[in-house]
C-alpha cells in the first residue's frame, strides 16, 4: 500500500488546476518545502490561458508564422511560468478529472464527511478529493487544498442559444490553442469584453471569415470610461493593446456594430440567422455559426460541492467563494483548510492569478507551520501590492464591460435557462409567483438544473433571477440601507459527482481506507516530465 504515492498518508498540499494560479501556487509552496501534488484535467500545464503552450512554443523556431505568433506575446510569456513549474519539484498528475471535494473532519466519527458541519469540536480539517484518472475513481486526502479551477464562460441566455451552431467564443479560442482547429464557415461574433477583441483578431489571423462583430456593450457603459480614467491608465499598455486589436479588426474589413441589443438566434434545427437591434432598427444577419461571449465568471463548482460559503459578487454578477484577505475559504463561520487562487476566487486575469496564488500558498504554508506570521506577511507584501495594482485595471474593465441587463436577467420570457430540462424564463417567473422560495426548490418544481450538466449552464442565471427578485422585494419594502452588502441569493446545492463518473467506477472506488485490490496497476505519478493522455471522460472539456 505504501508504494502508491497517491494513497500514502494525506498529502500536505493538493493544488487543483495547473493554470497560472495552480502553477504559481505550487512553485511558492515548494519554495517552503511543502509536499505538493498538482491535479489537472488537461494533459499538460497551462490552463485555459496557456493551453497547450509547451507544444506550441516548441514549434516556434520554424520559419512560418506558427500558432505561437498568432496567439501573441502574452501567450508566449506563460512559458517562463511553465518552466518554473516543471522544475519546482511538485508532483504533477495530469489527466485527472476531479469529481468531488469534501471536507472530512477527523473528529466527526469514523470516515464521515461533514458537509453539513455538525461537529463544532473540530480542530483540523482533512480534505478529500474524488478523482478519475485513467478511468479509475479514487479518493485522495490532503491536509490543505488550493483550488485553482479558473473561470467559465458566462452562459449567454438569448432566445435560440440552444441551437446547434451556437458556440462560446472562448470555447472556439480554446480549440484554436488545443488543436489549431478553426471554423471553416463564416461566423458572426456577438458579445462584450476584452476577449471578444482578442479572440476575433486571432480568428481573423487564422483565416476565419467573420461576417460581423456585434458589440453588445451598452453605450452607457462606455461613458463610464471618463469616471474610470485613473484606473484605465494604470496599465496604459494594455489599454493601447485593446484599442489596437479593435483597429486590426476594422482594418480587415469586418463590420463592427456597437450598441447591439435584443440578440436572438434563429433557425430551424440549426443556426440560420442572428437577429438583433441596432440604432433602433431591427436587423437580421444570415449566419452558419454564431459565437457568443459575455465575459467569464468564477468556476465555483468545487467550492460549492464542498459546501463552502459563497457570496454574490455584484460587480461581476456571479457567485464566488467567500474568503479572507489570504484567499482562505470558510464554512459555518470558520476558516477551512481550502484556499482559492486565480479566477475561481473572482475574475482578475492571468497576471493577478499568479499573485493571488502566491498569497494563498503563503497562507497555507503558515497553516502547515512552515513559516511564522511575520515571515508570511513579509513574503506576501509584494504580491499584495502587485495584486492591488492589477485590480485597478480589472475594476476599469468590470465597469466598462459590465454585461447588459438583458444578459444578466433575460428579458425575453421565451429564453431557455436550463437547456437540459428545457426550462424558460417564463417557467421560472411563474414558479416564483407560485411561491417557489429559491433555487433548490426550483429543482423540485421544474427540474431546473437537474439535467446532465448539473446546473453548470443555468446556475448563474437562476441565482441572478432570484437575486433580482430579492432586490426588488427589499426595495419595495424601503429598507433603510439602500445598497445591501453582497449576499448569497441562494444557489443550487451541488452534489458529487461534479464531473462524469460511471457507476462501475464508483462501485470500485479506491478510498485508501479499506483493503485495496492489489492486482490493478496504480496510476503513474510523473516526477515532473512527460505527458499523460486525457482520460476519455474529460475529453469533452469545459469552455473556458
Amino acid at each position, binding site marked *: 500500500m505504501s508504494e502508491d504515492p497517491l494513497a500514502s498518508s494525506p498529502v500536505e498540499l493538493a493544488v487543483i488546476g495547473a493554470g497560472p494560479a495552480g502553477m504559481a501556487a505550487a512553485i511558492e509552496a515548494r519554495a517552503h518545502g511543502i509536499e505538493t501534488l498538482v491535479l489537472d484535467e488537461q494533459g499538460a500545464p497551462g490552463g485555459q490561458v496557456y493551453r497547450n503552450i509547451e507544444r506550441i512554443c516548441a514549434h516556434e523556431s520554424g520559419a512560418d508564422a506558427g500558432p505561437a505568433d498568432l496567439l501573441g506575446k502574452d501567450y508566449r510569456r506563460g512559458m517562463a511560468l511553465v518552466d518554473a513549474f516543471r522544475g519546482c519539484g511538485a508532483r504533477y498528475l495530469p489527466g485527472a478529472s476531479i469529481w468531488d471535494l469534501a471536507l472530512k473532519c477527523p473528529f466527526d466519527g469514523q470516515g464521515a*464527511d461533514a*458537509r453539513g458541519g455538525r461537529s463544532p469540536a473540530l480542530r483540523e480539517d482533512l480534505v478529500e478529493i474524488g478523482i478519475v484518472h485513467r478511468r479509475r475513481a479514487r479518493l485522495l486526502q490532503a491536509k490543505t487544498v488550493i483550488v485553482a479551477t479558473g473561470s467559465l464562460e458566462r452562459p449567454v441566455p438569448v432566445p435560440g442559444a440552444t441551437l446547434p451552431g451556437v458556440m462560446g467564443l472562448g470555447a472556439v479560442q480554446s480549440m484554436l490553442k488545443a488543436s489549431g482547429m478553426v471554423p471553416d464557415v463564416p461566423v458572426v461574433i456577438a458579445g462584450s469584453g476584452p476577449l471578444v477583441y482578442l479572440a476575433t483578431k486571432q480568428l481573423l489571423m487564422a483565416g476565419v471569415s467573420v461576417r460581423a462583430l456585434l458589440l453588445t456593450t451598452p453605450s452607457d457603459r462606455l461613458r463610464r470610461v471618463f469616471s474610470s480614467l485613473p484606473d484605465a491608465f494604470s496599465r496604459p499598455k494594455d489599454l493601447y493593446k485593446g484599442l489596437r486589436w479593435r483597429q486590426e479588426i476594422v482594418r480587415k474589413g469586418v463590420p463592427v456594430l456597437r450598441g447591439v441589443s435584443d440578440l436572438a438566434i434563429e433557425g430551424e434545427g440549426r443556426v440560420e440567422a442572428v437577429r438583433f437591434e441596432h440604432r433602433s432598427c431591427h436587423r437580421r444577419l444570415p449566419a452558419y455559426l454564431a459565437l457568443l461571449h459575455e465575459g467569464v465568471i468564477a468556476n465555483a463548482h468545487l467550492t460549492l460541492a464542498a459546501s463552502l460559503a459563497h457570496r454574490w459578487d455584484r460587480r461581476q454578477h456571479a457567485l464566488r467563494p467567500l474568503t479572507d484577505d489570504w484567499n482562505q475559504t470558510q464554512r459555518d463561520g470558520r476558516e477551512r483548510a481550502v484556499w482559492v487562487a486565480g479566477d475561481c476566487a473572482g475574475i482578475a486575469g492571468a497576471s493577478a492569478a499568479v499573485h493571488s496564488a502566491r498569497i494563498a500558498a503563503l497562507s497555507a504554508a503558515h497553516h502547515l507551520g512552515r513559516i511564522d506570521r511575520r515571515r508570511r506577511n513579509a513574503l506576501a507584501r509584494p504580491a499584495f501590492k502587485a495584486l492591488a495594482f492589477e485590480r485597478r485595471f480589472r475594476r476599469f474593465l468590470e465597469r466598462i464591460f459590465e454585461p447588459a441587463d438583458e444578459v444578466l436577467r433575460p428579458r425575453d420570457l421565451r429564453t431557455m435557462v436550463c437547456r437540459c430540462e428545457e426550462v424558460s424564463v417564463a417557467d421560472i417567473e411563474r414558479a416564483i409567483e407560485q411561491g417557489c422560495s429559491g433555487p433548490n*426548490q426550483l429543482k423540485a418544481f421544474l427540474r431546473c438544473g437537474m439535467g446532465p450538466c448539473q446546473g453548470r449552464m443555468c446556475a448563474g442565471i437562476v441565482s441572478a433571477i432570484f437575486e433580482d427578485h430579492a432586490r426588488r422585494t427589499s426595495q419595495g419594502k424601503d429598507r433603510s440601507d439602500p445598497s445591501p452588502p453582497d449576499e448569497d441569493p441562494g444557489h443550487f446545492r451541488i452534489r458529487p459527482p461534479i464531473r462524469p463518473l460511471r457507476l462501475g467506477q464508483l462501485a470500485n472506488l479506491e478510498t485508501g481506507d479499506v483493503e485495496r485490490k492489489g492486482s490493478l496497476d496504480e496510476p503513474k505519478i510523473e516526477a515532473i516530465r512527460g505527458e499523460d493522455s486525457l482520460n476519455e471522460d474529460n475529453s469533452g472539456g469545459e469552455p473556458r
Partner: protein
Amino acid sequence: MPSKEYDAVVIGAGLVGAAIAYGLVRIGLRVAVLDEGDSVHRPSHGNFGLVWVQGKGVGRPEYARWTLESSERWFDLNASLVEDCGVDPGYRRPGGITPALSEDELCALKTMLERVRSESAAADFEFEILDDARIRTLLPACGPEVVGGAWTAYDGHVDPLRLLRALHASLDLHGARVRSQTKVRAIVPLPGGGFEIAVASGPSASSEDLAGYDPPKGSSLDGGETNKRLQAQRVVIAAGHGSKALGSMVGIEVPVSPEHGQILVTERTASILEYPTLSVRQSDEGSILLGGSKEDRGFDISAPVRTSAEIAARSLRIFPQIAKLRIVRSWGALRVMTPDGFPIYAASDEYAGAFAVACHSGVTLAANHVWQTSRWIERGTIPPEMACFSPRRFESPSSDVSKIA
C-alpha cells in the same frame, strides 16, 4: 362555533402535508398550507418514488393492510391529480421484485411474505417466489449472482417530484394557496375551540436552528421578515422533522428522528428494468435510481461518497450491465423515522382539532392521506382501528410514573 379564517391550517407542504391538504380541499374545506424556505431539509425532495407494499408490516398487520389499501387507491389519486391540474405523477404498478443474492435470502423472503399473508389474514395477498429462470424472464438485466427473488402485485412507482408538483398545483386550483417561506412560531389554542397560528414569513424564515445549525451568514434573522397570525378551526402538523417541536405546542408527542438515506441517479437509458426493486428502479424518463442506504448521520444531508460507492457496488451485483452508465447526481435526504418505523397518526387529547401525522412513506401512503386521513380531520377524530398508530404506543410505564410524580 365561531367562524375562523380557515377550516384547517396544514403545517408542512411536503408530500404528507400536501396530500392531506388536497384531501381537505376536495371535501370543500378552506385550507391554508404553510411551507418553509429554500434551505430547509425536505425529505419530499429526496424521495426514491416507490409505492411499496412488499415486506411492510411484518408484526404489525394493521400497517400491512394500511399500506395495501393505499396502493389500491393510488390509481384514483393519480387520475384525480391529472384531471385536476394536468400534471401526471406517472404512477405505474407492474408489481415489485426483490432479487435475492443467495438461497438464504430467498428463504427469508419467502418466510417474510408468508408471515405477512397469515398475519393480515388476507388469503388473496398475491406474491410469487421466483426461481433463477423466472426472475430472468421478468428482469433480464439480473446478473449471475442473482439466484431468485420475490414478486408482489401491489408495488409500483411514481415520479415523486411530479407528485409534489401535482399536489401543489391542484391545491392552488382548489383555492388553497401554499404559503412559502413561512415558519410557524407558535400554535395557540383559543378558548372556545380553534387555534391561532403565529407565523413569520420572509427569506430567512427557515428551521435551520432546529437542527442545531448556525443560520447561514448573511441571512440575519430580522432581515425582511414579517409576522402574521392565522386563525383556524383545525390544525394539522405534518412538518416532518419539524413536527416534534410543533407537536409539543398542542400536547402531541411526535418522537421522530432523521435517518439518512442516499440516492444516485444515472443518465437516461433505454428501458431495461420493467419492475422496480426496493433499491433500484428505472424512471419513466429512463434514468436509473439507486438507493437503499440507512444511516444515522444527524441532520447532515450531504451525500458522502463512501456510501454512494457502497450503493453502486451492491446495485451492480444485481444488475451488472448498468456499470457503464454515468451518474448524473447523488443526494442525501432524511427519512422521518419513528422509534418503531411505523407511522404516527395522532389527535390531541387536550385540544380538539389538533392533529399530527408523521411517516417515512409519504409517497406510498399519499392515497390514504388524501382519501382517508383528511376525512378524520374533517370529522375531528381518528377512528379506533387506527389507535395502534397513536404515539401513546411509545410511552413506557416508567414515564407514566414520572408524569404522575
